[in-house]
């Protein structure tokens, strides 16, 4: 399974990664090698096998729907690279 450079670029856009031309080249080869390797899963007959979607057999736990204290907004935004008051500041979204 070999990925084309165009596919590498398409995946990078989906992943919100800005790759350099060198990285595109490098990843094209490395990701193709990994995809070749994982293709061995196709040797297995998995018809009728349920996917393992949960690691535990336990029922989803519930808790009472009560109001509890959470992180104060001032603390929640403190680590943001740009903020205004208790808001995250981002570049213009509507162009």
């Amino acid at each position, binding site marked *: 399974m070999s990925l084309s450079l165009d596919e590498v670029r398409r995946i990078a856009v989906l992943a919100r*990664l800005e790759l350099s031309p060198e990285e595109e080249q490098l990843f094209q080869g490395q990701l193709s*090698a*990994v995809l070749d390797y994982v293709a061995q899963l196709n040797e*297995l007959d998995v018809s009728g*096998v349920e996917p393992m979607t949960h690691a535990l057999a336990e029922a989803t736990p519930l808790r009472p729907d009560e109001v509890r204290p959470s992180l104060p907004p001032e603390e929640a935004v403190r680590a943001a690279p740009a903020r205004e008051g208790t808001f995250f500041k981002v570049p213009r979204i509507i162009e």
Partner: protein
Amino acid sequence: MTGAGELLDLSLTELSTALGARRVSSREATEAALARVDATDARVGAFLAVAADRARARADAADERAARGARLGPLDGVPLAVKDLFLTRGVATTAGSRILEGFTPPYDAAVVERLEAAGAVIVGKLNMDEFAMGSSNENSAFKPCRNPWDLARTPGGSSGGSAAALAARQAFGTLGTDTGGSIREPAAFCGVVGLKPTYGRVSRYGVVAFASSLDQPGPLGRTVSDAAALLQVIAGRDERDMTSSSRPVDDYGAALEAGARGLTVGVPRAWLAEGVEEGVARRVKEALATYERLGAKLVDVELPHTKYGIAAYYLIAPAEASSNLARYDGVRFGLRRAGAGGLKGMYAATRDAGFGAEPKRRIMLGTYALSAGYYDAYYLRAQKVRTLLRRDFERAFERCDVIAGPVTPTVAFRLGEKVSDPLAMYLQDVFTVTCNLAALPGLSVPCGLHAEEKLPVGLQLIGRPFDEATLLRAARALEREQGPLPAPGALEARG
């Protein structure tokens, strides 16, 4: 207590006894650990941050409790260190990544809370592969970590610092996380004990997420008893992690000395037949013979889907990582780069500057595996293979109590040996990933030194779900029989 060196050679359990008897103070133990970090870490590189003032204050508080006869338990006053994947309120947490450089979390991970509530003194944050992605610690964005047995070798990864700090006598116990072998492989390479608990046994709250269906925090210790003492404190239900189990936590000390007699040890012969370096296989076979001599019964078991483990893992883990790492977007924490073209440009520029090569590779792989048209062929198929792997183990555990085999195909490899070939690095995890995929507990315990290389070899023990107690018992039986490994010499030899 006499010299600091002697103090640092104590196991966690021995130190705890000495603290309880007030033969040594927590402050002395903490100063000794901090001084050891100062003296050795330029060469080892196990620590990304040292929290000396906070540690001293907590040590003094522990000593004050001890003086009142009000120790909180066996960890009270014991200097520990944790992988830098665990959030620590007020102490920088990087996950080994530039994208989180300078980030100071506003809350503690559940396991950090539990350790501190038990009186432990956390002296610092440990080096690791970026976002726990790697098997050699060479993917740390900040600095390499080296193996105290041979400074030209890797300590393993991703919890490299957690294992190296113990081998270097810089802390008395550590925590790591294990997604595909990240506790067990470094434990094996550095000659310490490392336990990956059953998925759900330990809370993931406040652990920087890598692959959420596989990640599990766990303890590393210089002895089996030390690992048991740490697990005792960190295990148990936490309602902030919906996947943490409400099953009662066993008393891990209770059966620790029960020995190997009466245990049935399953041996997947194929794990010793191919792909394992001969000197490693020899030590593992000797450990199996020791179990037999101690009264355990050995039976052959088949785990026929093991060879598909890496392939399933390298679809599932990157897929989950690509989703988890979407949060690093330059908005709420960490790095931001302006980029061209508004918000999307900012996202892409931030992520390009902040992520190293391995996270980028895995994000790319995971994004591809989850993208339209490929989900069934990759992620869904891998999840079905996971069921097959789990069934392999269920069948094996009808015939045995624990499964024993190698942790790694080789002893610690040299820095730089595998960095240019990601797939070769991935194959390092061939014996460890199945345990994560099947959500089972796994442990690495030293089983001697490689005859020629003079480096530690680990024996892996895998147990039934939530049967950490039997793993610890079996590991202790081996440890008691073979005695402790010598202390690694590489640090002392160079002064």
